[in-house]
């Protein structure tokens, strides 16, 4: 009968604490993804293509997160993403097929490889900046693509390397259920988001931003350009190669044409369209660029017959966003949210005046 006010407030404060926790949004995104899988398991008719679309989009979100640290924070434009993701896929394929290595071991190998490759590109970035860096990394990606095409003994050339759903989890090869990998992907995506946020909010993230604003001012504040350029590239390469390994375990097939310039450009587009400095923006952007096409538009027979239209749509989206919302779609979402809030408040006051009569 008597409400214990302070206790009520305490509970409210606790709920507020949970909903305003920095990781809460990531949890919701992951939860929604898992719900899609769960609904399918329960028996709700969700097509396999839609599920695949969500899975691939999650993998690409990991790539885009790494890329956003590079572009949005360290201010380094790179077009080599496709090559790095490709290396990840082929590493898993090669080691599983030829040596029967466990996937965890392959992940460790790919992280070590990413540190080496990222270090090399980081060193290049010390000498070359801006647009030049973008083109040089594009060249690097092309070299990698040539390797994928021509090193037939490792990559099976232009025919593509397939695993047929076989993975080595601990010791023996097993056929892995897609649903398991989907769930694992969602969880990994959650942790990657958390790690990204940690980096962004930490002194490292601030050092990246300072370096992006002015290298000389950053150096005067004790930030070593060498260290942080290398770090940015290593981090983004680790993300990309990890995503590659997950991609290979999920799709079980990798072909050189996937890892072409178009993929790098699409990742860049996803980051720019969503908003390069916001994790939610990146999720949104990746869904707009990849998810919408794979998941929604491909469901309609019209788009299935004319796949070109969805490409046109993507292109128009990129152009319009850059022309009118340079901060990315996430800024548009934020502004609309605030505008809606204002409109709702206005309507509420109007209704109050109608219901209760105006004050005084």
């Amino acid at each position, binding site marked *: 009968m008597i409400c214990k006010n302070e206790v009520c407030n*305490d509970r409210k404060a606790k709920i507020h604490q949970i909903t305003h926790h920095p990781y809460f949004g990531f949890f919701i995104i992951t939860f929604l993804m898992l719900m899609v899988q769960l609904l399918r398991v329960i028996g709700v008719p969700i097509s396999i293509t839609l599920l695949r679309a969500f899975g691939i989009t999650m993998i690409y979100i990991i790539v885009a997160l790494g890329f956003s640290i590079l572009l949005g924070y360290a201010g380094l434009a790179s077009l080599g993403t496709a090559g790095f993701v490709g290396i990840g896929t082929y590493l898993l394929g090669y080691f599983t097929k030829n040596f029967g290595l466990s996937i965890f071991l392959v992940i460790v190998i790919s992280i070590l490889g990413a540190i080496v490759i990222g270090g090399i590109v980081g060193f290049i970035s010390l000498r070359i900046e801006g647009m030049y860096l973008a083109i040089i990394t594009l060249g690097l990606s092309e070299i990698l693509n040539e390797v994928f095409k021509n090193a037939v003994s490792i990559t099976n050339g232009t025919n593509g390397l397939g695993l047929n759903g076989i993975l080595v989890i601990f010791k023996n090869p097993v056929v892995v259920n897609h649903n398991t990998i989907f769930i694992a992907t969602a969880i990994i995506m959650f942790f990657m988001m958390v790690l990204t946020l940690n980096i962004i909010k930490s*002194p*490292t993230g*601030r050092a990246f931003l300072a370096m992006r604003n002015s290298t000389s001012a950053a150096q*005067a*504040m*004790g*930030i070593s350009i060498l260290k942080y350029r290398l770090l940015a590239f290593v981090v983004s390469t680790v993300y990309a190669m990890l995503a590659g390994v997950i991609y290979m375990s999920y799709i079980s097939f990798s072909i050189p044409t996937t890892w072409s310039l178009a993929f790098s450009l699409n990742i860049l587009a996803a980051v720019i369209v969503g908003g390069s400095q916001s994790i939610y923006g990146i999720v949104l952007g990746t869904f707009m660029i990849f998810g919408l096409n794979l998941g929604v538009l491909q469901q309609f027979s019209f788009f299935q017959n004319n796949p070109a239209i969805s490409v046109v749509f993507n292109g128009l989206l990129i152009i319009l966003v850059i022309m009118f919302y340079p901060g990315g779609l996430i800024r548009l979402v934020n502004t609309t949210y605030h505008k809606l809030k204002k409109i709702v408040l206005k309507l509420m006051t109007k209704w109050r005046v109608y219901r*209760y009569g105006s004050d005084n």
Partner: protein
Amino acid sequence: MVPIINELLITFHEKRINSIKTKINFNENYLPIKLQNITEKSEKKIKFLTLKAQERILPFEIAAGVESDYLKGKYNFHLDKINDKYYWKERAVKASASRKNLDPKDQVQTLLEEKNLEIKKLNNIYFPATSNDAKTEYNNQKAVIENELNSKVSLITETLNKKIAVTEALTQSKIDKLIVAKARLNEKLEKLTSKKEERYSLDQDVVLSIKNLSMHFGGLKAVDNLSFDVKEGEIFGLIGPNGAGKTTVFNCITRFYRPNSGEMYFKNIYGEVVHLNDKQVHNIIKEGIVRTFQNVEIVWELNVVDNLLVAAHTIYRSGFFGHLLNSRLLRQEEKVMRKKAEQILEDLSLGAYKYAYPLGLPYGILKKIELARTLMANPKLIILDEPAAGLNDAETDDLAKIIKKIQKDYNTTIFLVEHDMGLVMEICDTVCAISFGKKLAMGTPKEIQNSKIVQEAYLGGE
């Protein structure tokens, strides 16, 4: 071979001593924050317990008719709720009546009756008929509950005090251990240094010494055989006409340019004399030299406090993996640094802009924020490149006051380049005038003002 090993050992020990010093500093700074956290937690607990106890006493109070503050508060709260509810109901009734052009009198009357009924009910709940039995019961219960409460509270305060004592003791023991370790290292270092002779030495009160500095750009001699000393704790001004090479001197000191010849020595925060020519750009700040730039170099995406934290970059002990996993050490360090940054901002009367974003703040404020930022790195020497450029007279006066304040309160030496003669003459203790990279004169502001060579250089000369 031996001297090289000796030297390596010395640098190794020096580095370890420095890291121990930063550890001690961190522990000392983190202690009050930790204590505050603990006290806040137990205070919250005590408050909650008291509340619970009062809730338990409440029914007996009601039965006994004792009008305690808690009971009154609770009663008033519900009364207000009823009043509020009927106020809005009345307004709604009146409004709907005025829309329909009706007389609301009857409806208002019924509402009033309903309201009175509810208040009566409330009164019945809170102020029922009382009896003596209830009173004695109340007294008994109250004594029991309060006893319980008091014992609990005293327990909490006891544990709190214990905790405080323990943490203090722990921190103290940590610091003591560190101090012991430091002393041991110092001993070792002394043994090592006794073997080798001192490489560089500076006069007692000199912080920065520039000797025969020359810097050429192609054929142009920007700085030509320049020598001067900056004394500890003074404000040193470098003046000269446009293109005299003032900023080049700064860039040589902070290692953005590599001078063609000349030596630069600096007595760093640990009191050792270092040869600046051997240092890298990003390591200069670790020795205690912080600089600003001609234009404001602020990170626009970060708020003011975070901007200050950027300059504290070298003080953080947590590494990249600590940052990646948001480690406990990092969280503690962040708290310490944030407090320090807020303290500095308050000191320079910038408290209002703590969590503002720099985009859109006035230029004068941005310049002050840059000044505040230099203080984050515990500097010994602050180098200011044209601090008054682009400021109006009032802002310049303000800046002069702040520079004086920084010099006094933070025990730093300030070395500045400035065009605004008024500012230079007002705040500087020593002024050095240069022209075409060569030293013209050096002395107190008055001497410089009266110097003929300087006047000629400025006015073109006959």
